[in-house]
């Protein structure tokens, strides 16, 4: 399938020049890092000072979902854009589902693992307020469970139906609507009221988790090479 995706090999002279240039660039960068001395103090003091107003106790979550919410909003938007881009175009046939597997070990493993993964994902989402964890970790874990289920061939996640597509957009929608709703009260986009910040962050993260998991499952499904269809040959 990928036999023609090989670009032309660069001529030897050009390869040598490029290699030398890359080596020189790397050496210069390393020299800069070594000679520049210790880094300037970061923003940990500022973050720690404002942490009590953020609604969460984990500084990374506070930065992601309160202090720099725009970054995370745009990140969720990037995921949605990529999901739309990899979705099969209307009218194009969906990739055929995998044949249901008769592998009892795989099926038994999934029956055991998927419920546990769902619980651990919910835990990771919850613990993000206090310790490393959060929407993306939980979403990635749930997506892993989704991929496991989809490789049995017993279910196919096609994302052709409107509700399924709505799930993909749920995270971005919740994020934007919440940001706008708090702006009605506080006057600033993304300026959560301090008392409600923790609940709002958990609410946004829960919606984002579902969308992230769905998007990653979609990305996996759209990248599985289609089985060679014998019947559609010329």
């Amino acid at each position, binding site marked *: 399938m990928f036999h023609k995706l*090989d*670009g032309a090999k660069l001529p030897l002279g050009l390869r040598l020049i*490029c290699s030398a240039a890359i080596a020189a*660039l790397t050496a210069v960068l390393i020299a800069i890092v070594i000679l520049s001395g210790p880094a300037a103090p970061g923003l940990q003091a500022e973050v720690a000072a404002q942490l009590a107003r953020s609604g969460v106790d984990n500084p990374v979550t506070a930065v*992601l979902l309160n202090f720099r919410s725009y*970054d995370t909003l745009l990140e969720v938007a990037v995921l949605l854009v990529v999901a739309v881009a990899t979705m099969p175009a209307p009218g194009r046939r969906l990739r055929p589902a995998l044949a249901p597997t008769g592998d009892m070990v795989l099926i038994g493993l999934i029956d055991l693992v998927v419920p546990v993964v769902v619980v651990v994902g919910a835990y990771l989402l919850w613990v993000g307020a206090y310790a490393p964890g959060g929407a993306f970790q939980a979403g990635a874990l749930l997506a892993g469970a989704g991929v496991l289920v989809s490789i049995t061939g017993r279910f196919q996640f096609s994302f052709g139906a409107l509700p399924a597509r709505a799930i993909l957009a749920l995270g971005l929608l919740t994020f934007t609507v919440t940001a706008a709703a708090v702006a009605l009260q506080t006057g600033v986009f993304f300026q959560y009221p301090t008392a409600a910040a923790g609940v709002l962050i958990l609410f946004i993260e829960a919606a984002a988790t579902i969308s992230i998991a769905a998007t990653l499952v979609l990305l996996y499904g759209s990248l599985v090479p289609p089985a060679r269809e014998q019947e559609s040959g010329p």
Partner: protein
Amino acid sequence: MTQDLIYSVCGIALFGIGLYGLIIVPHILQKILAVNIMGVGVFMLLVAAGHNPGGVSDPVPHAMVLTGIVVAVAGTALALSLVCRIGELQRDGADEEAAP
């Protein structure tokens, strides 16, 4: 300090390795992998920059790296789906040439 330096230098080395792969290696899948390696190098550099020996680490680079990982995954998926489509189109073209 030394530990941060090791991480920073390794990050830059990974960036260089990735850049080499991006420019020199001809196959498109390997180029996509190379861009990912470059990204990992940048993430290592950022995490090392946020490390504060003997104190609380700077959470801002950590958050940036988390965001960056997700965007890198999304970008890789987009690139791979484009490659899949190119492969399909070329296969269809080859089929048509083989059986006119």
